[in-house]
């Protein structure tokens, strides 16, 4: 027995876990307390989750896409949901990332590169036709749709000649008199006609000016629009997106009979950056629960979007899962989504398939997605990395460094089960990583090496810190990183401060200062350089008194150095 004050004894209370849980498909295992984590947003009561849309963030290889695919697969198989995927990132250019999953579920992959559609086809209801044409115009000329232009367009669409886009442009240019005189209609229709002429005569020819009017079926479990064959900066993407979004909103949503639907935007930043499509997406988001539609947005990080839009998106998505991100991005995402500090701290250290989940305003969890074998095969995006590893196995030692760098850049997209299968290869990769690290370490530790490179001619006792020789050795080994790195870090901090992110810059400066104090000592030149940088940051933030104080510190340090040093 032990007798303690209650305040001290309270920490021994073994009350550590919660029992809050959500209904729905199994997702994985909580890394906070080991419980199983299930979630189908649509099954959660509206009071807990007002919106069902989700946002997946994470670095390359963090497993965000795998988690998104697994979720969709389980929702379709377990609950009979439907999904439309806009797949704009394929690892190999032949087909999109989602293609294997879509095919396994009996869905259809629609290749955007060979996509043609006649937006004016009689097979569409008049309303859909008008919406389609309007969104096409908005995609290329967002400013063209004035009230008058809209009226001119509406007037032209009723003309019998407007059975395809070419005819529509003709009618816009040479309208027949209606309620308004011909001159006025001609004048109003000019902007719209110019915009549409990009589809009939301009760079986007071939997409919307054919006679084909076959729309995708609305009863398939999953449809993927595969944008991977297109160039990332292709001007066709906003238009195609506009057409797809319009189809989803006006045809798919109305005709599909599934209990719930998902619209998945893979690598969504390019879709959300285009003003025309962003507006559509935002509208879909706002009406999502009413329309029984969830928007699942998968992207690398919110900073791609810029401040305003990212904030809007974060506010509208009640569910977010964030895979591994760098510390700065984690802090940014965390502040946008309102994550607690402990969760933000964990984001940079998450492993593959692990993510911080935020469900509604209060619930934050760290979850490792658990895949079965089928899912591991279907969602595997690591084929390239495997190829790199196999190539490395076959190739002689010569190009190991390049291969390793390549693999790093590709990201460790190999997901746990796959990685386990490939353990042998992983082990073989390890020595190369050692090779990369080895030179500097050897240079510092190995006395023989040191003597050759320069510095002291005799061995120093181990308790003498020989800074001069250290730098010499590093330079000698060809690793000039230290010198350039310092300047670079100062520059980065000042750059960030110039962009107005003062708090971030100050934090970075403090980190750099701490690192340099640890490396060089508190009265070192490096440390005072950091204080000067902090003073400049303080100047930029407008707190001149703080800057003066910091500069005084540096002056004091120099006096002290002169006195004692």
């Amino acid at each position: 027995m032990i007798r303690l004050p209650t305040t001290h004894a309270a920490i021994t209370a073994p009350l550590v876990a919660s029992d809050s849980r959500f209904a729905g498909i199994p997702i994985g295992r909580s890394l906070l307390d080991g419980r199983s984590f299930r979630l189908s947003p649509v099954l959660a009561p509206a009071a807990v989750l007002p919106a069902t849309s989700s946002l997946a963030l994470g670095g390359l290889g963090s497993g965000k896409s795998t988690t998104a695919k697994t979720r969709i697969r389980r929702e379709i198989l377990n609950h009979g949901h439907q999904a439309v995927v806009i797949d704009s990132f394929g690892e190999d250019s032949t087909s999109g990332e989602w293609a294997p999953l879509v095919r396994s579920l009996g869905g259809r992959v629609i290749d955007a590169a060979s996509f043609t559609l006649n937006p004016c086809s009689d097979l569409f209801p008049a309303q859909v036709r008008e919406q389609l044409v309007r969104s096409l115009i908005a995609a290329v000329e967002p400013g063209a749709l004035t009230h008058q232009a809209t009226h001119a367009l509406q007037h032209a669409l009723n003309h019998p000649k407007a059975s395809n886009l070419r005819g529509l442009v003709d009618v816009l240019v040479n309208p027949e008199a209606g309620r308004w005189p011909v001159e006025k209609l001609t004048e109003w229709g000019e902007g719209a006609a110019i915009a549409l002429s990009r589809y009939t005569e301009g760079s986007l020819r071939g997409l919307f000016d054919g006679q084909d009017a076959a729309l995708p079926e609305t009863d398939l479990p999953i449809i993927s629009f595969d944008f991977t064959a297109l160039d990332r900066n292709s001007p066709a993407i906003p238009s195609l997106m506009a057409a797809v979004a319009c189809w989803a909103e006006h045809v798919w949503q109305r005709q599909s009979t599934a209990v719930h639907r998902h619209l998945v935007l893979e690598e969504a930043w390019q879709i959300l950056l285009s003003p025309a499509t962003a507006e559509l997406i935002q509208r879909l988001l706002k009406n999502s629960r009413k329309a029984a539609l969830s928007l699942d947005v998968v992207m690398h990080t919110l900073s791609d979007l810029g401040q305003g839009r990212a904030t809007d998106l974060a506010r509208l998505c009640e569910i977010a899962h964030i895979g591994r991100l760098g510390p700065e991005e984690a802090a940014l995402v965390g502040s946008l989504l309102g994550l607690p500090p402990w969760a933000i701290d964990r984001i940079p250290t998450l492993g593959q398939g692990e993510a911080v989940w935020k469900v509604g305003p209060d619930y934050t969890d760290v979850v490792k997605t658990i895949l079965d074998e089928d899912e591991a095969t279907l969602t595997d995006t690591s084929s390239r990395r495997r190829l790199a590893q196999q190539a490395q196995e076959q190739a002689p030692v010569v190009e190991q460094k390049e291969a390793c760098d390549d693999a790093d850049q590709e990201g460790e997209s190999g997901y746990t089960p796959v990685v386990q299968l490939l353990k042998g290869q992983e082990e073989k990769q390890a020595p190369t990583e050692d090779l990369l690290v080895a030179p500097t370490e050897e240079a510092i530790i190995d006395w023989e090496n040191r003597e050759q490179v320069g510095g002291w001619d005799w061995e120093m006792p181990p308790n003498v810190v020989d800074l001069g020789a250290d730098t010499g050795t590093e330079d000698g080994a060809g690793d000039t990183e230290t010198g350039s790195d310092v300047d670079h870090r100062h520059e980065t901090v000042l750059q960030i401060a110039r962009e107005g992110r003062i708090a971030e810059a100050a934090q970075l400066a403090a980190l750099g200062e701490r690192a340099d104090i640890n490396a060089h000592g508190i009265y070192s030149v490096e440390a005072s350089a950091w204080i000067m940088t902090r003073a400049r940051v303080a100047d930029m933030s407008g707190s001149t008194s703080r800057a003066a104080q910091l500069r005084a510190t540096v002056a004091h340090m120099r006096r002290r150095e002169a006195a004692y040093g």
Partner: protein
Amino acid sequence: MYSLTPGYRIPGLQRGLSPAESLVTKTNAGVGASLLTAAAITPPPVWTFGAVGAAAALVNCAPGPRSLARWAAVGYRRLRERTAPSGVFAQPGATVTWGLYLQHGTMQDDQRRAQFHAAFSRALTFAGGQARTAGVQVHVTHHATTGEYTDHTQTVSVHVPRSLGGGTRILDTMEGEFAALGALASYTPDPIPAVAEHGPGWVALEDGRYAATARITGWPEETTGDLMPKLLLGPGSAERSLGVIYRPLPAAHSRRSAKWQQAASEAFTTDKVKQASEGLASTATQASLVQGDALVDLDAYLTVWGQDPEDVVDARWQASLAADRHRIRLDWLAGQQHRAHVMTTPHGASTRKGTIL
């Protein structure tokens, strides 16, 4: 920063004497006193001293492993402790058990965790202050079922001995107090499983499980408050239960105890460093008492479970390693396994202070 520097360890004195024991003590004192008085008045023949000395030597010196006395003592203990008599875990009084779960993320967030601990501390103080004398017991258990996923079962029980009276009022009051800590729901514990088999350091229960229980005798000197989440939520392969029984003291009793503790520490500790550290501990204690907290007697037990003897022995080894990592000292209850595991179930709530385990 919490300090778990031992405030007041009283291993030998923790148990009050049972009525029979106090009767024997008093009789012994009376008989001894009368004999001594008689001897003072009329000195006995000299050989009496020799006879008494010889008898004392026989009883006290080297009875040997095969002596009759030792055989009889061990045999009696085996007989006595073969079962867990219902009286041990069913002291007269009122007991209620609830399931208590925190709000999600409480243990991960430093601020919310500190708030929870403060609230729990207030609840203990409040429980202690419900009666004029000590006796209210609060028993908290945590059971983790491991596998692909881990399931946590957490209970809080309050036991009010019959001697305090007014049990229902105290229990209802405490229910409100605990409901403020998280999600509180009524909970009916499973009946105590009977012991089917004994082994070296473990027992097999009727339901096919094997258990090994340790008393937690040492806590880390200082922690930031995340001791329990690290210990219980961290990776662990074996099924395990942890039970802590709190016996809060009323305010006046706490103050008296702190006073004596400080006096004893100042008077009897010769080691200067130890004296200084005890001085710090008693300063902390005093500060807590000034803030309105109380003192609480704390007993904690850890049980590991397995599916077969090897399993439970391995789990015990793993638990020892984990305890070392967390600077917790475990004392495996080798002889009394047949009832020790009950202390990590809600049934342990009504055990008498100092029950032999």
